[in-house]
């Protein structure tokens, strides 16, 4: 059998390349096939050029490119599906995120589910699929794959999205995740992006656009952290809270002393003794209830605030961190889609206590109590907001602590007033 010379093979090779073949897996194979065909014709006695002409005459125009297309289509079905899936997901997830955010702002139900689901789709599915498609595309074009760029980009992206999701759902660990993704982005991902953008000549416009967007978003994220109120301003809110707690203790002690001193006098009257004991117990219960809420709010603001709580439940205000966190107050008192906040219950127990105290004293005195513990009017006379909203909604954590300790102080004052009223009435 006649074997073609190296030169002739090379000629046929260029012929195939001219046919539009770029897929290397096919190149060698089609060349061999073409060589065999030409050799067979040469066996019949034709010269190389004539033989080639004859073979080419039987070939359909553009058939080489067609073979390549058919082959890629057949073997890359999965990849095509993946790409299609990616585009569809890329439309659905962000739309759902935007709708979820609008629901969240409007306090409509279902916001949490939509936000978590869309962030999950983006972080756990879209990003990895995008990276694998992108790597395959780059490989297919015969270009080197910048692995660190994809790996660190993927890590930063996934951790950031998970952090955002945790933050919105009040799950622990959100802060750590967001900080970590920020560090990976600034210290590793952005430098790699810059180098890639400088090195690669072909996609410079695309690379620089990505780079600029990553930089802008990082800058905005940092700015939002920087916009948090200054620590000094927050510190000035500490003293009212401390004063409230101090005053409450003094009055509580006073009331206890009062009860101790006068109990021999009123214990003869069973009705009065019961009244006083009941009042004292109810005051302690409400005090404890509010303390519980305060502790929940400060721990929600930052888990480290656990350490500011003493064994007896007392709070060391100076040791608190994240005084400016307002989402904790909203979450604990107003709740979200899944949890009902404690706010309504709080207002109800205050009102119950007020009724009890008012019933214990005469009408000439009860209006003072009503005024001290009122829960009807709103702050600054804002008509469309309830008492609870105007005092607590979107308040920083330390603001809520001040309000709540103020209520504790007031109920101790009311307790004392009622006690002295009752004891003055003694014969």
């Amino acid at each position, binding site marked *: 059998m006649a*074997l*073609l*010379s*190296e030169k002739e*093979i090379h000629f046929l090779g260029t012929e195939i390349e001219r046919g539009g073949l770029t897929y290397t*897996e*096919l190149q*060698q*194979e*089609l*060349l*061999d*096939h073409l*060589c*065999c*065909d030409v050799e067979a014709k040469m066996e019949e006695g034709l010269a190389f050029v004539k033989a080639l002409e004859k073979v080419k005459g039987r070939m*359909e125009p553009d*058939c080489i490119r*067609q*073979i390549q297309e*058919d*082959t890629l*289509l*057949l*073997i890359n079905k999965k990849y095509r599906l993946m790409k299609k899936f990616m585009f569809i997901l890329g439309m659905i997830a962000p739309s759902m995120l935007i709708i979820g955010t609008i629901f969240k702002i409007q306090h409509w139900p279902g916001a949490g589910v939509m936000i978590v689901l869309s962030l999950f789709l983006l972080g756990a599915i879209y990003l990895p699929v995008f990276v694998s498609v992108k790597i395959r595309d780059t490989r297919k074009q015969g270009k080197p794959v910048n692995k660190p760029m994809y790996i660190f980009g993927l890590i930063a992206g996934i951790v950031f999205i998970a952090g955002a999701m945790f933050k919105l759902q009040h799950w622990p660990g959100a802060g750590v995740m967001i900080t970590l993704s920020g560090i990976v982005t600034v210290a590793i991902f952005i430098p790699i992006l810059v180098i890639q953008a400088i090195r690669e000549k072909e996609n410079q416009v695309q690379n620089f656009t990505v780079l600029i967007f990553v930089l802008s978003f990082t800058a905005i994220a940092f700015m939002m952290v920087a916009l948090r109120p200054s620590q000094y301003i927050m510190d000035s809110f500490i003293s009212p809270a401390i004063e409230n707690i101090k005053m409450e203790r003094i009055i509580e002690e006073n009331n206890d002393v009062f009860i101790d001193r006068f109990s021999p006098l009123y214990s003869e009257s069973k009705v009065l003794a019961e009244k006083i004991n009941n009042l004292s117990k109810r005051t302690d219960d409400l005090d404890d209830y509010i303390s519980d809420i305060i502790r929940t709010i400060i721990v929600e603001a930052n888990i480290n605030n656990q350490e500011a709580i003493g064994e007896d439940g007392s709070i060391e205000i100076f040791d608190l961190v994240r005084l400016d966190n307002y989402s904790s107050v909203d979450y604990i008192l107003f709740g979200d889609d899944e949890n009902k906040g404690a706010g309504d219950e709080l207002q109800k127990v205050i009102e119950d206590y007020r009724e009890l105290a008012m019933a214990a004293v005469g009408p000439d005195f009860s209006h003072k109590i009503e005024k001290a513990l009122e829960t009807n009017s709103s702050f600054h006379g804002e008509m469309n907001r309830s008492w609870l909203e105007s005092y607590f909604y979107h308040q920083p954590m330390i603001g809520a602590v001040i309000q709540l300790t103020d209520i504790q102080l007031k109920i101790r004052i009311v307790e004392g007033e009622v006690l002295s009223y009752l004891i003055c009435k003694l014969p």
Partner: protein
Amino acid sequence: MISNELLKGTLKTIVLRLLEENGRMYGYEMTKEVEKLTDGKVKITWGGLYPTLHKLEADHLIVAEEVNIGKRVRKYYTLTESGNNTAKEKVQEFIDFVAIMGQILNPKPSLNIG
């Protein structure tokens, strides 16, 4: 000559059958073998053959082995174990298909005398 339209769906079966019979083959050899077996009535074009070969390879039914022939590379294909099973299934399926088509196309003379 058998039209390409008819051959389209059977190419996979033909390739698997050829490899089952002959063990190791390369593309050009397959086209020639089919020509020989059918006295030139069936001509497999490379446009149909190579995409099919690559698809079978991607599905792990056949494996390729590159051998240097003079100054060029030749790709030999052999069946894998699962390819062997698939070849048997496909061939049987096709034989059944031909038999059924036969029933449609040349109905036996009816015995019912009305």
